[in-house]
């Protein structure tokens, strides 16, 4: 079956095309001048420039982390361009003003903004390279006090909020890539749900990396005040390039008393070709602070792309009775490497966390779950349940589980379950003997395997995720 299995992942990257839009690209290299340039280009206030410079000073003193189970050539940070914006200077008031070439790109990706937004009731804050081009539904949301815009815009329109929260969950010196992001981030989303407001629709952002060799340093900040609720969707895709592109995003979530933030991601960035050439390096820091009592932060991710994924969406459960959740499906194929998982830091009393991680490896890929559950001395009555399952397709791939459990309170209860299974020749034969071919069989097994995570996704994302997995693993069993 190994021959049969090898054919499944070899579907060419569907979204591999480059849009020809003139880009305003900063010279390659990183130093204080680069940072000043970014800050000037974005017309930023002094405090933000200082934030960036401080982060840069931190970064200079830090070492690239080496503990993850991934291998790649050392990144030359001086060979990266840190700013790239489509050359359309004036602000866009409506979709009609958007560059038609850009609109065509979205259509190729299957993201016709207006239709999608209208049909699905989703406000799409589209990020094209580093500058937000259009924001829909913003006014409607504004009526109920929700702020949903690019973070650069928020810096100007709501500086007090950005200043109050930026860097409070992921401090500038938190880790190597977070420090880098804090120094050079160009744009991202900002979302503020005021007290008592339940956001009436899923908020959605489509990211897309476009200019070759331009690093992507997105910065997202979501704040839910007391009793507020929001569901945020992040979907990603990128054009096909041979040189690796670094993506080092930072996402910060803050949930106050009784607030609820659900953050869902479907990631399908270019993973490199079948020989492991090219692809995105996805080194992301995502962290949510469940600050208030009874608050809840939930991460759901479907990671299918990128040459390397290095990502641990985490929850700091500070408020008493707060809840953290992490539901993840990570698929690796060919020579992809994923080291992903979560951290659940229990600080408040009776805090609860759930981790459900499903890793699927095919081809020559490496797929690792790495997770930390920490129960602080203050976290009386804390509970955690973790389940980490791995599914292997073929004989050349590997799956690892690295759970770290630190319990400093006797009343806490921590459970960890793990399993590894393999799509076997006998399973496929059984399906075939009932008239079901290999591809359908694999898709059925995988969807069954991922069911617990897919159930957590908003409806339209669940369908997309199911299709994406089928596409990703097509030909790897057969």
């Amino acid at each position: 079956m190994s021959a049969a299995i090898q054919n499944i992942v070899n579907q060419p990257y569907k979204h591999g095309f480059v849009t020809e839009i003139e880009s305003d690209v900063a010279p390659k290299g990183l130093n204080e001048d680069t940072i000043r340039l970014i800050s000037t280009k974005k017309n930023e206030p002094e405090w933000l420039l200082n934030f960036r410079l401080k982060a840069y000073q931190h970064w200079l003193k830090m070492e690239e982390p080496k503990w993850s189970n991934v291998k790649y050539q050392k990144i030359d940070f001086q060979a990266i361009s840190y700013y790239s914006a489509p050359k359309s200077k004036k602000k866009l008031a409506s979709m009609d003003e958007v560059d038609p070439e850009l609109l065509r790109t979205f259509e190729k990706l299957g993201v016709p903004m207006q239709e999608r937004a209208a049909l699905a009731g989703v406000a799409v804050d589209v990020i094209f390279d580093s500058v937000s081009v259009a924001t829909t539904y913003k006014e409607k949301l504004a009526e109920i006090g929700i702020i949903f815009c690019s973070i650069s815009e928020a810096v100007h329109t709501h500086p007090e909020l950005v200043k109050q929260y930026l860097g409070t969950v992921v401090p500038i010196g938190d880790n190597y890539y977070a420090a880098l992001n804090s120094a050079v981030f160009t744009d991202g989303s900002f979302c503020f749900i005021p007290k008592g407001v339940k956001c009436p629709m899923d908020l959605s952002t489509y990211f897309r990396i476009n200019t070759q060799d331009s690093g992507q340093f997105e910065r997202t900040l979501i704040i839910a005040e007391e009793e507020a609720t929001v569901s945020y969707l992040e979907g990603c895709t990128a054009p096909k390039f041979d040189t690796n592109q670094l993506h080092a995003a930072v996402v910060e979530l803050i949930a106050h008393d009784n607030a609820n933030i659900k953050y869902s991601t479907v990631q399908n960035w270019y993973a490199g070709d079948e020989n492991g050439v090219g692809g995105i390096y996805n080194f992301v820091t995502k962290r949510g602070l469940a600050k208030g009592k009874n608050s809840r932060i939930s991460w759901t991710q479907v990671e299918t792309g990128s040459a390397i994924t290095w990502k641990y969406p985490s929850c700091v459960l500070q408020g008493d009775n707060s809840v953290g959740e992490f539901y993840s499906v990570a698929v690796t194929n060919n020579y992809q490497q994923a080291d992903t998982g979560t951290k659940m830091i229990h600080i408040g009393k009776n805090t609860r966390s759930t981790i459900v991680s499903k890793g699927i490896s095919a081809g020559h890929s490496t797929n690792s779950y790495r997770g930390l559950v920490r129960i602080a001395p203050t976290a009386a009555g804390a509970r955690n349940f973790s389940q980490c399952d791995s599914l292997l397709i073929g004989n050349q791939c590997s799956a690892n589980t690295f759970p770290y459990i630190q319990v400093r309170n006797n009343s806490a209860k921590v459970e960890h379950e793990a399993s590894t299974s393999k799509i076997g020749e006998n399973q496929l034969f059984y399906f075939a003997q009932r008239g079901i071919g290999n591809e359908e069989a694999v898709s059925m097994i995988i969807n069954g395997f991922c069911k617990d995570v897919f159930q957590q996704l908003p409806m339209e994302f669940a369908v997309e995720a199911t299709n994406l997995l089928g596409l990703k693993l097509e030909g790897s069993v057969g």
Partner: protein
Amino acid sequence: MIYQDSKTLLKVRGLYATAKGIEILKGINLTVKSGEVHAIMGTNGSGKSTFAKVLAGHAAYEITGGTVVFKGKNLFDLAPEERARAGMFLGFQYPIEIPGVANNQFLRLAYNKAQVQRNKDELDPLEFDDLVREKMKLLKMDPEFLDRSVNEDFSGGEKKRNEILQMALLDPRLAILDETDSGLDIDAVRIVANGVNQLANRDNAIILITHYQRMLNYIVPDYVHVMESGRIVKSGGKELALELEAHGYDWVSGEQPATVGT
């Protein structure tokens, strides 16, 4: 039942097969016509299960000689799933567990593949639910099996009933039941045998692979074949099984290869 004017469903001539370079089947001849029930008996390692898996197209075996014609077509031109859709059914000796895939989903997909093949409408989940519950009564199966993962944590007997349930749904032309009686208590043997008997008709045929006579008390074969060292060494009517039971397999050892129904 033997009918004089029946069509030949399966014609095996001089079939040889190897696994990992070791020859397991060494020249099998067998002809099965519609309406007939054949029993293949023999000791462990005589090649009975291999024969079944080779017919169904398991990739672990290599065909090194001979021909098999199924419903007038060269069987080896068909992929395993095409053989299944053409009406060949293998009841597994050890049914495979498929964690995470609900039994009803699996059964419906398999059923709809057969429906498409027969140019009939596929059934939606509600329509299928009615049908499958009806079939489950035949085998005295609890409907809660529908929601469980395919064969996962099923007892030996439950797995075998699930196999016969699939046979009932797929309505195959040729059902090869590989030691369906093993691991079943006497009540379960009766229920399963009763199910198989109700499914047998003029247009289909059954090959029962078994160690023991007891299954044949309930499903009466038209022909009994004894396999040894990868060949059929003796063939006869239903009384042959009783003789085997009385005398043991040593009784046929050293017999010359035989063919039946040619």
